[in-house]
């Protein structure tokens, strides 16, 4: 077994050596370097295209998915070897994809054979870019209050309604979507469907955030017809799938904090300065120290949860806890960065501020969404209280 793994490691190393292009072994310099794939994706760097094609062909964008659906078919141990080898050469992720992170795992669990065969391989190869149609203007924290109607018209479903906060819907090829198939009940009247965004009647409108960026859209469905085969799971059985998918999303978003390019300590040293080796502003210093401790505590806890998961413990209920802690951590980090950078972090654009300064400001504003997207902190605290701690209303 261990010997097999060492063989696998050697082969993997050799393959990566031969196939990972040089520019794909350098650190990403910004969000623009993220490859999202899809029908209309334009690669800024031909080596990024090559890297995706090669990894996609081996199924290593989704290493543990079954090979029959285009995945790598690797065991958990083999995957750990692959990840460690990728890390060793500093390889960039070949693909960023809601299909990989969120939809794929639930398709594997809930979809029928035809649906798996149709969609999973394209996700693996980055050919189809997915977006998520969950929230609606009247259904945010109360997601199950969604109203987008899906009617059975015999040979097709007819969809009418509006979604909001659909990430990059304006770039997406397909949308996985929660719809209402029964108005007489709440949670039990929701279904999970897949919608081709090129279907007539689908419109998207980007939402500009307070940070100036537009990573989300409003998405409108007007008399959109989709094939009957596009429903995943049973009719009115969508809520269970939705909850499972939210866990993947929370785990994913809670990882934001680790994506730090500029360290708050470095920023503070630069803008605040040291005196006898300590930040001159002792008040800020104490708060940064507390933050760095929480950051370390969070990282150690993620590691612990992974270890417990590996040992067979059920840690899925911890997703909400990590979502809350991760979001809080990143918001605090961004606040401390803005405070440390002083008036250099009060800019919006122009030459008066460096690109790093402006990124601090914009990143700070963007971070405020972390405690809202993927389930608000309030909703996730409810989940921890009720599902993890067993505190329930008697009403």
């Amino acid at each position, binding site marked *: 077994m261990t010997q097999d793994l060492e063989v696998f490691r050697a082969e993997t190393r050799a393959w990566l050596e031969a196939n990972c292009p040089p520019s794909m072994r350098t650190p990403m310099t910004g969000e623009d370097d993220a490859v999202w794939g899809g029908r209309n994706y334009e690669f800024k760097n031909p080596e990024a295209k090559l890297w995706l094609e090669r990894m996609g062909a081996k199924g290593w964008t989704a290493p543990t998915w079954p090979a029959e659906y285009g995945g790598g078919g690797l065991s958990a141990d083999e995957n750990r070897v692959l990840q460690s080898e990728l890390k060793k050469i500093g390889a960039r992720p070949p693909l960023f994809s809601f299909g990989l992170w969120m939809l794929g795992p639930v398709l594997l669990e809930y979809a029928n054979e035809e649906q798996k065969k149709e969609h999973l391989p394209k996700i693996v190869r980055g050919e189809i870019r997915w977006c998520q149609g969950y929230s609606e203007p009247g259904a945010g924290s*109360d997601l199950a209050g969604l109203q987008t109607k899906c009617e059975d018209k015999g040979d097709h479903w007819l969809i009418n309604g509006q979604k909001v906060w659909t990430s990059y819907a304006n770039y997406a090829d397909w949308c996985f979507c929660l719809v209402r198939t029964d108005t007489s009940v709440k949670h039990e009247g929701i279904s999970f469907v897949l919608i081709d965004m090129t279907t007539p009647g689908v419109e998207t409108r980007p939402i500009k955030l307070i940070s100036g960026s537009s990573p989300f859209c409003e998405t409108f469905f007007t008399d959109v017809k989709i094939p009957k085969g596009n429903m995943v799971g049973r009719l009115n059985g969508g809520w269970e799938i939705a909850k499972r998918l939210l866990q993947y999303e929370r785990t994913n978003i809670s990882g934001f904090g680790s994506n730090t390019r500029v360290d708050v300590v470095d920023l503070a040293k630069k803008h605040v300065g040291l005196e006898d080796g300590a930040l001159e502003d002792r008040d800020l210093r104490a708060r940064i120290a507390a933050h760095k401790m929480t950051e370390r505590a969070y990282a150690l806890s993620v590691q612990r949860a992974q270890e417990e998961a590996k040992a067979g413990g059920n840690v899925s209920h911890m997703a909400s806890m990590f979502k809350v802690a991760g979001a809080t951590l990143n918001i605090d980090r961004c606040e401390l960065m803005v405070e440390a950078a002083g008036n250099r972090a009060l800019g919006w654009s122009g030459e*008066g501020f460096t690109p790093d300064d402006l990124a601090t400001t914009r990143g*700070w504003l963007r971070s405020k969404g972390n405690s809202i997207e993927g389930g608000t902190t309030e909703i996730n605290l409810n989940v921890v209280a009720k599902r993890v701690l067993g505190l329930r209303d008697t009403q």
Partner: protein
Amino acid sequence: MTFTLNDDARMLKDSARDFFREQAPVTRLRKQRDAKQNGRDPELWAEISALGFAGVIIPEEYGGAGLGYVALGAVLEEAGRTLVASPLHSSALAGASALLLAGTDAQKAEWLPKIASGEVIATIAIDEGAHHAPAKSKIKFEGGKLSGEKKYVADGHIADLFIVAAADALFLVKADTAGVTRRELVTADSRGAADISFAGVAAEKMNGGADIVDAILDRARIGLAAEMVGAASEAFEITSEYLKTRKQFGQVIGGFQALQHRAAKLFTDLELTRSCVLAALDALDRNANNVAEYASLAKARASETVHLATNEMVQLHGGIGMTDVHDAGLYLKRARVTEALYGGASFHRDRYASLLGF
């Protein structure tokens, strides 16, 4: 001490409220921003000045109303409520205070009437790095020529007159003097500012030393705190209204106890801070001997309160609060700028502790 406005101040506050609500609601800031005016709105400033707001603390002999800081604070609070972008704070409060405290008779006679009428926009140039540290100024003045750099001067991009602070002296510099270079800053609060360099610039020395620099800064801090309390109050009230109307899970979200407790705590914090700011303004008019304490108290607490109020505004509005079309972001951005100006909570906690002797 009193927390109650006298009749003059009350009338002024009411007229400010009416004017700003009608003529300068948040949509006006939004328009300025979308037109990339970066805080430039001479028309609005002319209207504000015409109402006498630019001369509130300037004595009648110099063309002002001589009503004092409590009265101007009331106007600034109302301006803060609708995020009015104008040089009201930098010119009518900070600039005017500098001339009142440190101006020679000739300087007062030359500039105060123009500041009171709004014809001249003055501002104080203080910081030289990323952080507020007035005692560490490196401004040099030799042979009537001033040299050095100032960073993030509020309204520095539109000011006609700079009051430049050295560590222990103050100088008047006209913005169009040879050797003055200003780099306009496009700022997050859409109000604009400037980094300014002075390369051997003709300047007039004003009266007073480090004490007077401090006294002027304390006025700027207290006045800004009044604006911040206005912004925080409005942010709180908008949020509170939203809690009463937004429904999820079949009920208004203001019915959820966790949100009720947060709202109650924010309200308490706001009321406590309001008392500090009112007391600080009153201390200025009373010429109290502990203005410095009041200034640090008011600015530190206002910084924390407006921070909390605007962050809660975004969070409690949920997704909509993150969108540019909603006003929450505008309150959040202005709050962050005012927090940093003339020293943040951290700076003023340190100063307060020193003032109290520990």
